[in-house]
């Protein structure tokens, strides 16, 4: 395992030293927010808090939470902590319901964010010798700009492809010998599929690593992508509210994502009570931005469910690790009273030999939930007899029943008939209007 770091001192810093750095930055940040964000100041005042009550990381739990609703309510400037004249950039979520989240960045915010992405690229073996193809969307979405900046900082030759136009992606990938691919996992899978269709073998490309994030994906999907592209696939985590990708990243050990905790202080809480849970317990991830100037969210509830662990990593980094989110409280579906995560369906499809391109359609008929899953037929499961094909379908339904505890109606549809994602995939169509 190559041990390379972008900012070695921070990435391998002993815990006590990291905690001291976090405490110092937290105190300064709370003061900055108190002075500049009346909304958060009022939340602190409701709890009878002043900046003097926060003397270090040990006092973090006293601070009030921020939720996505707060961000929507305070749109657009309510959480801004710097004059607009000091801001150089906005990024925004793809949120289609309610008002979208808009985050502001000073030049320093952009620099630190790009450092985080550079750490991620370096951790997968990226150096100035690499050709980094960024196929995340550019624009308001944080994926493209974040990895683009990180790639520049590492010194890679950067291919700012943005998402979409897959033929062109493949042409640049092949002609310019891209070695690192950054995009959403579903787009990586799609590129792999398209390469195969064009007659390329995994060893025909020069890719060695991929950095894939911005949507949930499973270990099965990771193996699928690694096989089809002939690479190692790494996860990256982030959210617009905290900056973008690079909040946490996987190293070559592929054993969870290291959180850039010098910038983002992480906690796990019980999503129902808000109580802080001990390390190693599963709960909702909460971030406090320690260094952001323009949009410094304190104790922001991500709705991502995961586990934090601190321990020696084979890569030499001491940064605390988070597991891949085990689901988001907001992509979890409750169907006939049963909790279902789309990633479970995906895992079943892959293990049964189907394409991970699927669509879940939920509706409510006569007060009962209907649960339909459209699945693309594959040559491996197709048989010339009705009986044979129906048996394959039945086997799939049973596998889903085993995984989920409820039985979906599976519809086999023609290959490529479910819209492919060139950004984030729409996996669930919920017509039930439960909220």
């Amino acid at each position, binding site marked *: 395992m190559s041990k390379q770091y972008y900012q070695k001192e921070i990435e391998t810093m002993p815990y006590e030293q990291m905690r001291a750095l976090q405490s110092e930055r937290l105190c300064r940040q709370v003061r900055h927010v108190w002075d500049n964000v009346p909304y958060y100041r009022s939340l602190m005042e409701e709890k009878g808090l002043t900046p003097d009550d926060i003397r270090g990381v040990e006092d973090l739990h006293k601070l009030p939470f921020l939720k996505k609703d707060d961000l929507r309510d305070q749109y657009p400037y309510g959480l801004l902590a710097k004059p607009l004249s000091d801001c150089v950039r906005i990024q925004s979520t793809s949120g289609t319901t309610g008002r979208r989240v808009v985050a502001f960045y000073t030049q320093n915010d952009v620099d630190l964010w790009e450092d985080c992405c550079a750490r991620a690229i370096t951790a997968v073996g990226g150096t100035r010798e690499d050709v980094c193809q960024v196929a995340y969307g550019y624009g308001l979405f944080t994926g493209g700009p974040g990895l683009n900046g990180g790639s520049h900082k590492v010194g890679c030759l950067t291919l700012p492809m943005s998402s979409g136009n897959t033929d062109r992606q493949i042409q640049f990938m092949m002609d310019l010998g891209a070695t690192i691919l950054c995009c959403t996992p579903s787009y990586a899978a799609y590129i792999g599929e398209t390469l195969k269709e064009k007659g390329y073998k995994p060893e025909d490309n020069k890719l060695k690593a991929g950095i894939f994030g911005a949507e949930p994906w499973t270990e099965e999907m990771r193996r699928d992508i690694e096989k089809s592209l002939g690479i190692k696939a790494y996860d990256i985590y982030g959210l617009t509210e905290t900056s973008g990708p690079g909040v946490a990243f996987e190293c070559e050990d592929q054993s969870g994502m290291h959180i850039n905790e010098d910038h983002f202080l992480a906690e796990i809480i019980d999503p129902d009570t808000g109580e802080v849970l001990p390390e190693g317990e599963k709960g909702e991830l909460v971030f406090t931005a320690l260094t952001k100037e323009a949009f410094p969210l304190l104790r922001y509830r991500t709705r991502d469910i995961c586990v934090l662990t601190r321990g020696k990593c084979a890569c030499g980094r001491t940064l605390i690790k988070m597991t891949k989110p085990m689901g988001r409280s907001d992509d979890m579906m409750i169907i006939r009273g049963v909790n279902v995560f789309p990633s479970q369906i995906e895992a079943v499809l892959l293990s049964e030999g189907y394409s991970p391109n699927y669509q879940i359609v939920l509706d409510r008929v006569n007060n009962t939930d209907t649960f339909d899953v459209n699945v693309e*037929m*594959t*040559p491996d499961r*197709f*048989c*010339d*007899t*009705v*009986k044979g*094909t*129906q048996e394959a*379908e039945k086997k799939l339904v049973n596998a889903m029943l085993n995984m989920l505890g409820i039985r979906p109606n599976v*519809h*086999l*549809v*023609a*290959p*490529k*008939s479910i819209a492919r994602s060139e950004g984030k995939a729409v996996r669930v169509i919920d017509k039930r209007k439960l909220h």
Partner: protein
Amino acid sequence: MAIRQVSVFVENRKGALADPLRVLSEAGIGLRALSIADTSDFGILRIITDDNTKAAFVLSEHGYVCSVTDVVAACADDKPGGLADLLTTLSEQGVDVEYVYAFVAKTGNHAWVVMRVNDNTEAERILRESNITLVSEADIAAV
């Protein structure tokens, strides 16, 4: 002697049948025999063409899920009971017929019957011994 049949997965929707047939015609491939099995969700289009290898290739290239299966084709007398006699011969000797479809040949007084059976070699042996003429892929292509 077994002949190749191309099966195609088709969705149960408007135009789903015409589309793959159009793909074949545009590739200059002629249909010789066709049958469809359908369920409420999907259908299986089974065809024999004048170039089955090319048909499977062209359909796959156009994104269709298809498979090539060996089936048995034989001549049945074009008279009432002709097909029934043929099938009885097979079933009496333990050959299972999964599905069957027939079409009337352009020449002579017989129909051509395509059968998907559990044992092609055995079915062919029985048919030969019963003096039933087997039909080859070349016979069908030449129509």
